């Protein structure tokens, strides 16, 4: 099997598994307990926090562990909105956000918040000037994803952050689930206030993630209880998951630059080969600039996405249509729609997503199987 669905989820890194097994077998204490077993777990937790903080170049106190990207996005958006609503009730986001962001904003609309959903161009890019002109006196939050999960577009976060620096009362949240440890990031320099990370997209475990919350920001917690995570996120900490997640962060961060270079080449190579075999292939999203080398979204005119995915699966290559969360519905992706991609092309789109393990050979196999499937189907 050739697994090219790494944007849906990734295999867990062997070293991460090792860490987790060690914790599962030995360090079962509750971090809140005062005895040795508890103290051990507490130490693990704090070491993990330090590691994650280092990968983001932030303070340890600015990391809140969560149950994943969805919770992180919910905590950031609703946490800011409900805490700072006396300052204003306007939020700016984009039309191509993940449902975890979009649905959180929709929810807030029921509470009298107004939300501007910024459009994107054909490449899936937001125009920073558009952001600027959407800012109002009552804007309290801007939430923009770092890397789009369906087409891989990297938003100009640095430029958006530069604009927002002129508005110190507006918080800037970035959903970094697909970007973290994969594409360049300078949290502090770019003026990001909140950044969401999820473990299972970086060869870590599912059900764990982190939210970076800049010092000085008070979020309204989404869960009450024992007061863990500095009161921001109650509930007994997922110690094995957190320890595994920290290991995954550490590894991913170490190899991120090398991977960026390697995968940038492989992605380009893949596009060239696909075009060579089938000149009609359409690349959805940017071809070279402003795009994550981990994601490639393509359409073959005249073929449905699901049909292609099934055809490829028979050839032992696993890819997906759009994002995993929406892949079961027979509606066209809101992301592709927002990019102005025609219905036909959108229905035919598949997402191929790579990982640190992806090799040149894999690209060759994929292109080969792809052309076989296409020739058979067309």
């Amino acid at each position, binding site marked *: *099997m050739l697994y090219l*669905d790494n944007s*849906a*989820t990734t*295999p*867990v890194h062997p070293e*991460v*598994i090792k860490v987790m*097994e060690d914790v*599962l*077998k030995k360090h*079962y*204490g*509750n971090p*809140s*307990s*005062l*005895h*040795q*077993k*508890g103290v051990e777990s507490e130490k693990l937790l704090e070491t993990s926090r330090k590691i994650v903080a280092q990968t983001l170049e932030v303070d340890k106190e600015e990391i809140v562990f969560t*149950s*994943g990207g*969805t*919770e992180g*996005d*919910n905590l950031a958006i609703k946490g800011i909105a409900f805490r700072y609503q006396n300052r204003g009730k306007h939020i700016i986001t984009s039309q191509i956000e*993940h*449902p*975890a962001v979009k*649905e*959180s904003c929709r929810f807030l609309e029921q509470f009298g918040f107004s939300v501007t959903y910024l459009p994107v161009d054909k490449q899936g890019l937001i125009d920073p000037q558009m952001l600027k002109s959407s800012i109002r006196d009552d804007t309290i939050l801007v939430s923009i994803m770092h890397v789009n999960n369906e087409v891989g577009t990297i938003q100009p976060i640095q430029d958006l952050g530069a604009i927002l620096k002129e508005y110190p009362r507006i918080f800037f949240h970035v959903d970094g689930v697909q970007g973290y440890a994969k594409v360049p990031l300078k949290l502090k320099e770019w003026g990001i206030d909140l950044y969401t990370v*999820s473990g*299972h997209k970086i060869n870590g*475990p*599912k*059900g*764990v993630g982190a939210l970076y919350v800049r010092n000085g920001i008070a979020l309204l917690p*989404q*869960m*009450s*209880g*024992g*007061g863990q995570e500095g009161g921001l996120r*109650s*509930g*007994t*900490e*997922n110690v*094995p*998951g957190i320890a595994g997640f920290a290991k995954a962060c550490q590894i991913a961060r170490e190899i991120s630059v090398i991977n960026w270079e390697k995968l940038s080449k492989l992605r380009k190579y893949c596009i060239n080969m696909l075009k060579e075999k089938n000149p009609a292939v359409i690349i959805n999203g940017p071809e070279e600039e402003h795009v994550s080398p981990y994601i490639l979204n393509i359409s073959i005119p005249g073929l449905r996405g*699901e049909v292609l*995915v099934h055809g490829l*699966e028979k050839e032992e290559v*696993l890819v*997906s249509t759009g994002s*995993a*969360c929406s*892949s*079961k519905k027979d509606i066209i992706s809101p992301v592709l729609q927002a990019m102005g991609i025609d219905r036909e092309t959108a229905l035919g789109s598949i997402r191929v997503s790579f990982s640190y393990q992806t090799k040149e050979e894999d690209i060759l196999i994929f292109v080969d199987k792809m052309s076989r499937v296409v020739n058979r189907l067309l």
Partner: protein
Amino acid sequence: MRRVYLDHSATTPVRPEVVQLVNKYLTETFGNPSSVHAFGREARKGVETAREQIAALIKAKPEEIFFTSGGTEADNMAIVGTAMANQTKGKHIITTQIEHHAVLDTCKSLIKQGFEVTFLPVNPDATIDLELLKSSIRDDTILITMMHVNNEVGTILPIKEVGQIAKEKGIIFHVDAVQSFGKLPIDVNEMNIDLLSASGHKIYALKGTGCLYIRKGTKIAPLFFGGSQERKRRPGTENVPGIVAFGLAAHLAGQEMEAEAERLTKLRDKLIDGILEKIPNVQLNGHRTNRLPGHVNVSIRYIEGESLLLMLDMKGIAASSGSACTSGSLDPSHVLLAMGIPHEIAHGSLRMTLGKGTTEEDVDYVLEVLPEIVEKLRSMSPLYNSMKLENNEECSKCTQKR
């Protein structure tokens, strides 16, 4: 040195069968359950099997089980979700004064949003008065939320009776079963439970996974928003290893429940009797018999719980002074205070919770070590020495002072 873990109400070690299964789901079956390809389908199968295993343990239907990140999230979702979805019917909630903070603080957060909450007082043994409950019900009561077993003192609450009352009045009934799930029989139909919280790490599975049972037809809003996982009630990529672990642990707990309850009850009673016999000025907290098998909580007068814990820890015994979450703070437990136990006695409380790995030798070891430590601590306490001069007042009388 002998190491004895007696803090199973705080959390449990992960059982070997579970570790093995988790390993499989970390290595081979790593797919995203929402993916339609083979890897996704396999992961989905694991999640659905776990759902069946958990449903079976409480006589629910698999589609009534929704996975969460733990007991705290399940409690929050049950309470906030019910409040949000039913507020047009009324804004009154009934709970008790001895709930876990995941319930108490969630209810308090609703007060800020215009809800009214009745916190029922409890009897000295942490049981509740059903007549008081009945008289607290109002026309606008939309939810009764009550724990099955109290985590600090182990008392079992009359869930079935409360369920009957809630049903007759048409009020949604939520049970925080984090401490009883997998340990005591639960039948959501017989007990008329509409919502029930459970957590994996209390039954030898993983921290960070739990579930909320939602009776079909119960109106409840989600806590989080996003993808369509858990039929939109709990979005977010599923914690597949955690979920399959929880399912297996629930299945095994069901198989072992009766025998384990019997075994632990014996050990518990031996420990309680031994302590009461060997140490003067001690009282048992919670109900003597109507308590969780394996749950011991005593107040030892004239000593500080904190010092006691430290000394026990040095002897290899891991215990606690209250719930794990609050043991970091110096405030006496809200549960003991609600039971009418005076501050100074509450401060000397010791919780020892037994579990799968606990043996009779462990209990014997505690009964050997604990009296010595208590004697040593008391000999350093000026309070104890002056008391000894005055008289030898029975400790049980102290509780009646309040």
